[in-house]
């Protein structure tokens, strides 16, 4: 049987752990420093997305920040308590973009199972891997379940279209079955995992390892060191400024 592997990571040839290191460092530094550091991280993230052919997808994801941007603008320019003005609002938005774009690029260019496999190969336990993977898969799974509940409620005459008030009223009959169904499913999922020997002792077999290199390993250490130094300097500056 031929194994076809079409994966976004092939476009970047970077090991997922290298991308994770970069994303974590970028997020931490953007949050800590803001300003030009955040701007540099935004530019780097955009370039990485462009190189991987995922710029459009990342840009669409970044649009999710629009409500936050508007709120920041209102708070900083219109409310007396904000006081940062337009510059303050832009600075806050830049910091937010710098913090969110690296993980967005990471997940836009990396298959979750590749990332989890590489983390597991480096010692992450199978239960921790499952928890992370399940958390990442929870959003699409919940969306699918919600779609099913909506269809079922519509079939029973619930009006989920039309005015905002009607849509709002439609949320209540959606939430209870969604939450209860999800909770009930947890127990069955746990049993299903046991039925597939998830609790077996020892290390799991990893079917594949993705390319890594000495250069990437060195880069990960350098990224980690830069992040630690950057955060330490920022903390020292903050203490000195008091």
């Amino acid at each position, binding site marked *: 049987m031929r194994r076809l592997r079409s994966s976004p990571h092939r476009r970047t040839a970077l090991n997922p752990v290298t991308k994770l290191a970069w994303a974590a460092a970028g997020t931490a530094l953007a949050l800590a420093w803001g300003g030009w550091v955040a701007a540099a991280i935004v530019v780097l993230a955009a370039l990485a997305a462009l190189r991987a052919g995922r710029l459009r997808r990342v840009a669409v994801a970044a649009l999710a920040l629009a409500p936050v941007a508007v709120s920041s603008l209102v708070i900083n320019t219109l409310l007396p308590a904000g006081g940062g003005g337009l510059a303050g609002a832009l600075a806050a938005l830049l910091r937010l973009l710098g913090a969110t774009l690296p993980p967005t690029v990471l997940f836009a260019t990396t298959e979750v*199972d590749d990332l989890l496999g590489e983390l597991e190969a480096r010692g992450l336990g199978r239960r921790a891997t499952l928890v992370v993977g399940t958390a990442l898969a929870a959003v699409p799974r919940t969306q699918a379940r919600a779609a099913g509940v909506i269809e079922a409620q519509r079939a029973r005459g619930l009006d989920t279209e039309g005015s905002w008030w009607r849509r709002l009223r439609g949320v209540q009959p959606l939430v209870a079955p969604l939450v209860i169904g999800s909770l009930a499913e947890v127990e069955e999922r746990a049993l299903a995992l046991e039925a597939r020997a998830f609790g077996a002792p020892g290390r799991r077999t*990893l079917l594949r390892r993705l390319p890594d290199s000495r250069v990437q390993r060195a880069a990960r250490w350098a990224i980690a060191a830069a992040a630690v130094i950057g955060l330490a300097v920022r903390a020292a500056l903050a203490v000195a400024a008091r």
Partner: protein
Amino acid sequence: MIALEEAAYRYPGAAAWALGPISLELRPGEVVGVRGANESGKSTLCLVASGLAPAAVGGELRGRVEVDGRATSELRPHELARRCGLLFDNPAVQLTGLHRTVYDEVAFGPCNLGMPVPVVHARVRSALDVLAIGHLAERHPQRLSGGESQLVALAGLLALGPAYLALDEPTSRLDAERSALVADAIARVAETGVGVLVAEHDEALLARLCVRVVDL
């Protein structure tokens, strides 16, 4: 052989017995049906026969349940999984949601057991071949039809190499066409020597597949 001898079971914290007492034998290569009304204990029987109740579920088991001469109460869940696979009625629950191909999803069980990579590949190919779903290998598990999902879930169990399978209403969520696909697959699995216990409402399916049917 899976043997239940006056087996009765109640769930943790429950006052009432959900099953039994019941005696039953399932031999390699035969398909035994279980029928009964809702809440009659079909799902519980599957859990007990596979050993997951009480090994993973907890609760109280009376009587004796053995798989190939070993009491299920003496075995841990992963040891039971290698002896008797349990298929739930909802394949969405059985599939992990962690893999992007059917191939990787089916390999999940053997990988959990730490089998060598060539063995894992051999088992996955064998499971896909038996169920005639090799063409799904590179498909995304979340983008399959209900019948295909159920077959992939079944392949995931077969890849563990169990001598027996307990199938809890495997066609209850499927239309007639897809039910027939699953029934064909069950027949093929039994032909390989796997003993299959099928809890079902579908009388026609039971009549077609089973050497005998137990009423609950």
